[in-house]
């Protein structure tokens, strides 16, 4: 039971990070119909910014806020310079451009990171609470709480603010939104900025329990099964998908070597993709995605 609870806490914590990344994917996809493959680069750029701002003497909360602002600015810049000229072009082409953007940003960030391991100074480290024999790491609680706060703020933003309403309208139908006086360009830029900020937040939490190095970006790829499981155009689905991936990964990593060793070593790495395939077999648009209606 102790192992199960520890695995669940770790899974929910890591899943919260995947959910933050997945939210960035979904917000951009909803507003622009583009899958942003530069999200991993935005994540490590944000984490690197936290490292540098922390070294400059900023306290952790200020460093995180600063990094989120910088990542938002970076996302906005990418949208304005690399993607805005491609409006009207096939989304496949734009998605490929985001892969190029990802590589460019990572090359620059890798220069800043260097080849040594880098650490993010943070209040939690690997400190744990001992709750009835279950070691609950403080950072996992921080991740879960942060995700809850972010989701609440996003809900309030989309539900109650004018610009949030504009984003929803654009996501629903761009041409109609234009006719209603909504600046679709602004909503595009804003969605990229939000995604950048969320990626920076995710990158920060990745760095709370481990060192940051030039391979850290690969973690962001775990948001891909998350968004497909949850549904590509569902904010709630992104959250659920991220948590599912985190929990599945933790449970498989904990129990598979004991109870299903015949699956081989490191089956946890592919377990999210197995879940993804199962979900797609039952619900091709993800758990919470919008079914496509086609005229045939």
């Amino acid at each position, binding site marked *: 039971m102790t*192992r199960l609870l*520890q*695995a669940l806490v*770790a899974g929910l914590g*890591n899943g919260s990070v995947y959910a933050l990344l997945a939210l960035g994917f979904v917000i951009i996809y909803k507003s622009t*119909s*583009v*899958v942003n*493959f530069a999200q991993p680069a935005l994540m490590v750029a944000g984490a690197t910014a936290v490292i540098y701002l922390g070294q400059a003497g900023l306290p952790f909360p200020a460093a995180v806020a600063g990094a989120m602002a910088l990542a938002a600015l970076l996302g906005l810049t990418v949208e304005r310079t690399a993607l805005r000229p491609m409006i009207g072009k*096939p*989304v*496949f082409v734009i*998605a490929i451009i985001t892969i190029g953007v990802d590589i460019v940003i990572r090359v620059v960030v*890798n220069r800043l990171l260097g*080849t*040594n*391991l*880098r*650490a993010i100074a*943070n209040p939690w*480290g*690997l*400190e*744990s609470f001992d709750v009835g024999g279950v*070691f609950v*790491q403080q950072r996992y609680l921080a991740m879960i709480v942060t995700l809850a706060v972010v989701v609440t703020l996003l809900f309030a933003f989309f539900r109650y603010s004018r610009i949030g309403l504009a984003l929803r309208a654009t996501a629903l139908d761009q041409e109609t939104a234009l006719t209603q006086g909504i600046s679709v360009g602004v909503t595009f830029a804003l969605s990229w900025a939000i995604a950048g900020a969320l990626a920076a937040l995710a990158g920060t939490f*990745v760095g*709370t*329990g*481990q*060192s940051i*190095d*030039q*391979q850290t970006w*690969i*973690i962001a*790829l*775990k948001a*891909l*099964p998350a968004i*497909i499981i949850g549904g*590509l155009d569902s904010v709630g689905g992104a959250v659920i998908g991220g948590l599912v991936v985190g929990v599945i*990964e*933790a449970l498989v*990593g*904990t129990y*598979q*070597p*004991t109870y299903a060793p015949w699956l081989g*070593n*490191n089956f*946890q*790495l*592919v377990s999210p*993709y197995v879940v*993804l395939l199962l979900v*797609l077999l039952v619900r091709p*648009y993800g758990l919470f995605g919008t079914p*496509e209606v*086609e005229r045939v």
Partner: protein
Amino acid sequence: MTTKIRTKRTLALLAVLALLATGCRDAGGGGDEALEDTQADLTEEPADTGAPTEADTAIQTPDATDEEPAGATEEETDGEQAAAGDVEFDVGVTDQACPEAANPDNGCIYLGTISDLTVGPFAALANPITDAQAAFWSRVNADGGIGGFDVDVSEHVRDNEYNPERHNQEYQAIKGDVLALAQTLGSPTTAAIIDDMETDQIVGAPASWTSLWAFEDVIVESGINYCLEAMNQVDYAVENVDGGVGSVIAVGYPGDYGGDAAAGVAVAAEANGIEFTNIETGQGPDNQAGAISGIVQQQPDLVIVTTGPADAGAIVGQTAAQGYAGQFMFTGPSWNKGLLDSPAAPAVESLVLLSGPWPPYDADTPGHEAMREALGDVDPNEGYTSGWAWSYPLRAALEQAASNGDLTRAGLLEAIGQIESVDYEGMLPEGAGNLAGDPNEAVVRQSVIFRPDPEAATGATLVEDFFTGPTAESYELEGACFTTTG
């Protein structure tokens, strides 16, 4: 087809690619089967092997021309002899001076480097290794070079990203321009080119310590291998860990690196009557849940870690956070002083010991002193120490070949068979570097033990100088401890 459907199909395709990327990372950049396929594909092109043919090496004329450019191809350099002496040479050696030569009147020996320079798990070590080797050969050149030739290690430096397929590609790209490899980093990566190296008669200094190298004629290895080092780790822990050692877990990457160490741990565990468990783990700190769970569940007295530094830090930090307080011992490449600034730092300082093939960066041997002087003002790193020490056997081989008057690839290979000891300037014990002897007799069995120390130059302080544990002492090395066929 609607745009949305097309997008989702694209996304599904990219998700599959992401899965492949994850899988490749787990397998060190590629599985053995894929590797064998790649090797087969590449070796099916005999016209591009870069090996000197009989015609290449048989025609040697004394009237070398001075007009050939540096880095000339083998065809262009057929039949050369150095102006400085009667030394035969062909591929990778020219009578033209090296770029930025220390001795403009010397010819040039080109050595290749294939290393993990950017995104692989050992980049933090690989860059200092490469820099140290550049400094080593600069010192050789400053001392006059070898047999009338300077040595160049800067023209053919390639990045393998710790990916066996990439390593092979880079090898194929440079093999026609180099006499030998000053560095081929990684065990699984070097395994991806070892057959080609034998075919091409290209000698290489490995930046790895797998036991297989003792049985490869084209490899000039230095220091104890992972297998024997792991035996020493276990023996040392049995003698020195409070409360003794009744159980041990080996955690490492699959393949020649982690597998070689795990094989050594298994031998030492059996010799000491210790319960042994092997846990293979993938690359990436986020992929260590299985290893962490296994350690926490089994609560072994000793854990031998053979991974990259970031993963080693995650394993130590996370297990300690879950209450594990046993002894960790890292194999050399698992260490990076950045771990002392990581979230795992308290656990690393209190639970970890490290082992290595030679004393640390700030040791007081002539070799260490020469290294520090040659490097100048750098941020100390054990990669420098390793890169420097690994270069001595190749220098000895080149000197022997030059003295034999034959700096062809075949000549260099023949010279290796004549070297019974290498002068490591005190960095390794007397007698180390017997490249000619039987592997079981020639292999180095001594290693050293460090402990993490934030005050030390490289974050680690020597606590036990060269020693050989009873298991390694009596072990008969009759073949590689780890092979891909098991």
